[in-house]
């Protein structure tokens, strides 16, 4: 049983525990990225240790398959090690942006995204031990992946960027390459759908 799987909030707290400044002599993420780009395997491992679990959680919420999520995280790190980090955001936010872009490419190339899972099926999956914790509807925590699988891929993206990454509308528009108005309308529709589907949780 997976009783104590971390939430977004716990990932943020854990991340803060190794933030530069508090971590003494540990190199910060941008330094690790720079070393990774030069082929420093230890630096690559350190970045994967710091961000791999979180990125996998986000990737799984986006694509719904563990294998695809793993591929996506691998491609994200590969892209990160080959791309210049300009320091316009945290490294984690930048990694999530790369992941989003790669997820879009993966979806269009494979055309086998789980497009929509019924709420019943999602609830069944949640209580099967695959990704959920079962229990009563009133106090159970719905898995992020299960919640988002009811949304279209575009709607999942905006929810992840806004609710998990706390990005502004402008940042989301930049990350997704769409106008700000499109971001807003997608966010409204995504939330509306979630509000309707998970009324009992709110």
């Amino acid at each position: 049983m997976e009783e104590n799987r971390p939430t977004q909030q716990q990932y943020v707290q854990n991340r803060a525990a190794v933030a530069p400044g508090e971590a003494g002599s540990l190199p910060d993420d941008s330094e690790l990225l720079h070393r990774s780009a030069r082929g420093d395997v230890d630096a690559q491992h350190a970045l994967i240790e710091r961000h791999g679990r979180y990125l996998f959680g986000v990737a799984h919420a986006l694509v719904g398959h563990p294998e695809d999520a793993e591929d996506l995280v691998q491609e994200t790190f590969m892209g990160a090690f080959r791309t210049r980090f300009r320091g316009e955001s945290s490294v984690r936010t930048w990694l999530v942006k790369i992941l989003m872009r790669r997820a879009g490419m993966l979806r269009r190339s494979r055309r086998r995204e789980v497009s929509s899972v019924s709420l019943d099926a999602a609830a069944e999956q949640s209580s099967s031990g695959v990704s959920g914790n079962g229990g009563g509807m009133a106090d159970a925590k719905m898995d992020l992946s299960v919640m988002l699988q009811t949304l279209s891929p575009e709607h999942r993206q905006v929810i992840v960027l806004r609710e998990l990454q706390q990005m502004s509308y402008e940042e989301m528009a930049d990350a997704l390459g769409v106008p700000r108005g499109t971001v807003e309308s997608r966010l409204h529709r995504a939330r509306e759908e979630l509000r309707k589907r998970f009324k009992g949780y709110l």
Partner: protein
Amino acid sequence: MSCDLLEKIHAYHDGELPAAERGALEAHLKSCSDCSELLNELQSLSRVIAAAPMVQISNDALRRLRDRRYVLPDAGVLKIAGWLTAAAAAVLLAALLVFPKQQADNNVAAGADLLDTVAVAPPTEPTDSNRNDLVALAQQMADELSTNDRQ
């Protein structure tokens, strides 16, 4: 509830509503139960999502992530690719200078033939769905070249 109001409530919840409009909206929220209920639900939804457990990566998958050899582009290959790109651009420019515009205007087919000799055309016109990918790919290629140049 009007669409305009709906947008403002979402923007308010996200901290995106301009300061000049916040006071009026807050006053409205105090007098409108529908709108205040919507705001409460948005806040609750954000809390539920933030508290939702994320699927954990298996130890095997994490090990595979770590053990994978992330092959980075070789500096020499990239430099040659950069030279080839510059050479192709130079050939294209030279061809356009050698063949006057008027000739190309009068004979579109001939111009197309010329271009075919100096550039490889994409098999199809990019669609809206993959245009962003192409732009992103071009951006990444440029970034990679730039990154490599700095080393």
